[in-house]
């Protein structure tokens, strides 16, 4: 009996479980998935909670609803992996042996990494929206807030869903406009990057939107500490930004079990081959989603595209064949821009986001790098797709490799 162990039952782990369950012969394979939390969070939905668009019930479901029958489910904290011995130890002392391991332990915010961030004002005037608790507390705060300086601050890269902080700024502009108090709220976007976004072409478009929406941008700001008494964030080079409400995107880290296993980098992300998704150190370990150290975005769409590559390569490896599938860094995101509109971007390791249509050339229905209403509906409809197709490992009508068809190259745009 071959043993496949999947660590983590988030987006990536659940997708892999469903895909492998369908093709691996149960007479030959025993599949086990391990996680410590019974609840599956629809993380893309957290962004909408502070603005009252989504409620808690929109973004949570029991994890077990998405597991196939006849797989072993273990709900326990992972203590550590001993990769040299092909063993995983759980918090309660259980020892599990594997032939193949898939690490899908994700990433979490680590506000304790920044001095003063998790101080007195935490969840009183300082909020995150990367946890359900943070997003819910912020929603409550916004209900009665009378306005002032709203500061959105990315502490340190990399972060999960790098477009979410921008979307938050755009949605806040819309939300306070609708409430008739936009003139009382001064919105500032503070980032350690040198521009509004990681990808140059998209950054240009985004900084135009920020200007248009009267959102001040402060770049190259590396947050050193938070002063809870004077309500300000201070950068390492001693610049200061005052806030009345701080929406923080704290440092993101991989799971602590990776650190306990001695398998991660300085942020607990696992060194992974950027094309094959195999662990750099162990041939029988694959890594997927936010848990990897890849230079691709940490996002559900990326985990989805990776899942197809991992699936193929895993099947090759167990047959003793060479791995053929290559992950190209493909990412695809909707960017909510407020007032019922959104943009969409599609890019990979090599190609910057550009204009065009997606997924069908010329037709779309989605428009790349342009603001449309249908993109916004796409984003809202994605919740259905996520719960019903994506994490169940079903085929989506999009290709995992990025395609150039339907995209308009820069030279053509200029004509």
């Amino acid at each position: 009996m071959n043993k496949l162990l999947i660590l983590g039952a988030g987006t990536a782990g659940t997708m892999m479980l469903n895909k492998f369950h369908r093709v691996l012969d149960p007479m030959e394979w025993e599949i086990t998935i391990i996680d410590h939390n019974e609840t599956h969070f629809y993380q893309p939905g957290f962004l909408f909670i502070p603005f009252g668009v989504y409620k808690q019930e929109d973004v949570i479901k029991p994890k077990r609803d998405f597991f196939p029958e006849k797989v072993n489910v273990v709900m326990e904290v992972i203590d550590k992996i001993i990769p040299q011995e092909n063993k995983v130890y759980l918090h309660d002392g259980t020892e599990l042996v594997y032939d193949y391991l898939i690490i899908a332990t994700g990433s979490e915010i680590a506000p304790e990494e920044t001095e003063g961030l998790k101080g007195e004002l935490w969840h009183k005037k300082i909020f995150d929206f990367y946890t359900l608790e943070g997003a819910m507390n912020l929603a409550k705060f916004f209900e009665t807030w009378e306005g002032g300086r709203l500061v959105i601050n990315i502490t340190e890269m990399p972060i999960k869903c790098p477009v979410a902080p921008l979307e938050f700024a755009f949605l806040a502009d819309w939300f306070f406009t609708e409430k008739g108090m936009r003139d009382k709220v001064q919105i500032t976007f503070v980032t350690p990057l040198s521009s509004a976004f990681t990808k140059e072409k998209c950054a240009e478009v985004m900084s135009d939107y920020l200007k248009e929406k009267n959102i001040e941008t402060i770049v190259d700001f590396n947050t050193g500490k938070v002063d809870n008494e004077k309500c300000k964030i201070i950068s390492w080079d001693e610049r200061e930004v005052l806030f009345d409400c701080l929406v923080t995107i704290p440092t993101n880290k991989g799971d602590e079990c990776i650190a306990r296993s001695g398998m991660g980098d300085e942020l607990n992300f696992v060194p992974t081959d950027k094309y094959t998704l195999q662990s750099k150190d162990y041939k029988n370990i694959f890594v997927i989603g936010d848990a990897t150290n890849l230079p691709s975005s940490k996002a559900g769409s990326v985990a989805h595209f990776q899942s197809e590559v991992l699936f193929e390569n895993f099947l090759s490896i167990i047959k003793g064949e060479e791995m053929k599938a290559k992950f190209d860094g493909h990412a695809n995101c909707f960017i909510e821009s407020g007032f019922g509109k959104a943009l969409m971007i599609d890019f990979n390791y090599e190609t910057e986001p550009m204009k065009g249509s997606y997924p069908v050339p010329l037709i779309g229905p989605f428009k790349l790098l342009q603001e449309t209403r249908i993109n916004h509906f796409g984003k809202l409809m994605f919740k259905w797709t996520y719960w019903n197709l994506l994490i169940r490992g079903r085929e989506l009508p999009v290709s995992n490799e990025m395609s150039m068809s339907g995209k308009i190259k820069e030279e053509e745009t200029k004509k």
Partner: protein
Amino acid sequence: MATIQIGGKEIEVDSDGNLKNLNDWNEDIAKEIAVLEGIPELTDRHWLVINFMRKEFIEKGDGPTIRRLTKESGVDTKELYALFPKGPAKKAARIGGIPKPKGCI
């Protein structure tokens, strides 16, 4: 093709303004780039960081993040910012003749 003038020589640079070829770099060039970056003199502490950056780049194909720099080089964040004001990783990379660290996407 972009170039910069250093010590009377034209040296090729990338779109960020960092040296394009690792082999064009030497310590004298580093000193001149440092001056252009507003650092008149490179101390031993500067060199510790610059050499660490180069070593990481040669081994891994990318310069380290600030977090890795502080963890591995023994220079803490506060001092890094004092040595290379504004953007330590970016500045030290430029002076060290390696591309701007990709950081993360």
